[in-house]
């Protein structure tokens, strides 16, 4: 509805308001600022960013820091790897001697937890088995089983 839209201001009312506003703002219009351009220049100089050469030096310094950090990390990682002593594989040693049985079980079937406990026994077993093999070879009625078949 047109009656809800803003009513137009009559020209005489508009002129009255114009004159009142002009008169009210006249002192402010005559006002001037005392700020000088030197103050702006000082502020610009104060907040000036770092020049480019300093930025380049800072970039090089950062790259140096990162390379030193990378070298130290690589050294620590490498030393942590080399400090771990290799675990001797008893079953492999046993098999390589030509003995394939330990207390009725193959060497490869031994549980890992029993390696240390069996190390003393395996030495005696190795000796016994070697004696068996030697006796059989002396009788020449039994050929020694090739080690490759065990593997």
């Amino acid at each position, binding site marked *: 509805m047109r009656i809800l839209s803003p009513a137009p201001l*009559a020209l005489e009312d508009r002129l009255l308001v114009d004159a009142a506003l002009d008169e009210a703002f006249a002192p402010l*219009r005559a006002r001037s600022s005392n700020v000088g351009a030197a103050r702006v220049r000082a502020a610009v100089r104060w907040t000036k960013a770092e020049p480019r050469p300093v930025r380049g030096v800072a970039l090089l310094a950062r790259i140096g820091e990162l390379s030193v950090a990378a070298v130290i990390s690589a050294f620590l990682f490498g030393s942590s790897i080399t400090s771990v002593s290799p675990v001797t594989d008893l079953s492999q040693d046993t098999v390589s001697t030509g003995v394939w049985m330990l207390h009725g079980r193959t060497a490869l079937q031994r549980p890992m937890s029993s390696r240390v406990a069996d190390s003393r026994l395996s030495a005696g077993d190795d000796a016994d088995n070697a004696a068996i093999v030697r006796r059989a070879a002396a009788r020449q009625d039994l050929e020694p089983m090739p080690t490759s078949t065990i593997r």
Partner: protein
Amino acid sequence: MTARSRPKSKPQGPADERRGDRELVHAARAGDTSAFDDLFYRYRDGIHRLAISITKDPSAAEEIVVDTFVRAHRAIERLEPDDSLRPWLYRVAINLSYNRQPRKGVTFSSLDDGVFDLPTQGESPSEAAERAERRRLVLECVEALGPKHKIVVVLCYLNGLNLAEIAEIVEVPVGTVKSRLHYALRKLRVQLSAHPGLDFEPATLFAAIERQMPPPKVRKGHAR
């Protein structure tokens, strides 16, 4: 609208008047500090008036002037003013003014500091007092406007900008500026007519509203 006097600016030489904002910006970009100073003195007073009308704090207004031109100096490399740098500068100043927190414990009552309330030549003290009172009432009514309407009135009547420049500063279409200005003037008219000491009679306003109302429609059947 009556012919308003344009705000005074720093007197500039003929060489400065020949150089537009675009030339000054390019010269400042090339390292010419005097060109940047020319830009500063060209817009310093307008920005100061605008800032003081929003913050009502003279020292804050000076800081806003400095901050505005510091930002202009930082952005001078990417500034490409078509004709005038004024919309960009005024927009920055308005944002800085609204973002500035008022100082604690310090209140500024009015835009006017009372310096101009002294009687002029040929004016009696009583007339000067009436004029000062009338101005104070009008400024209070302007202060009572909303921020969107107040900034349009300030830019139009204090800084003397036209509608297109205001639209560019406020970043709204020209039609919106017209609408806001019209609404602000209507509201000012009603508020000013409420003061018995002022010479504003509400009769003309109500007559205008009555003139706008459509005449009652008469149906054919009832027109016998």
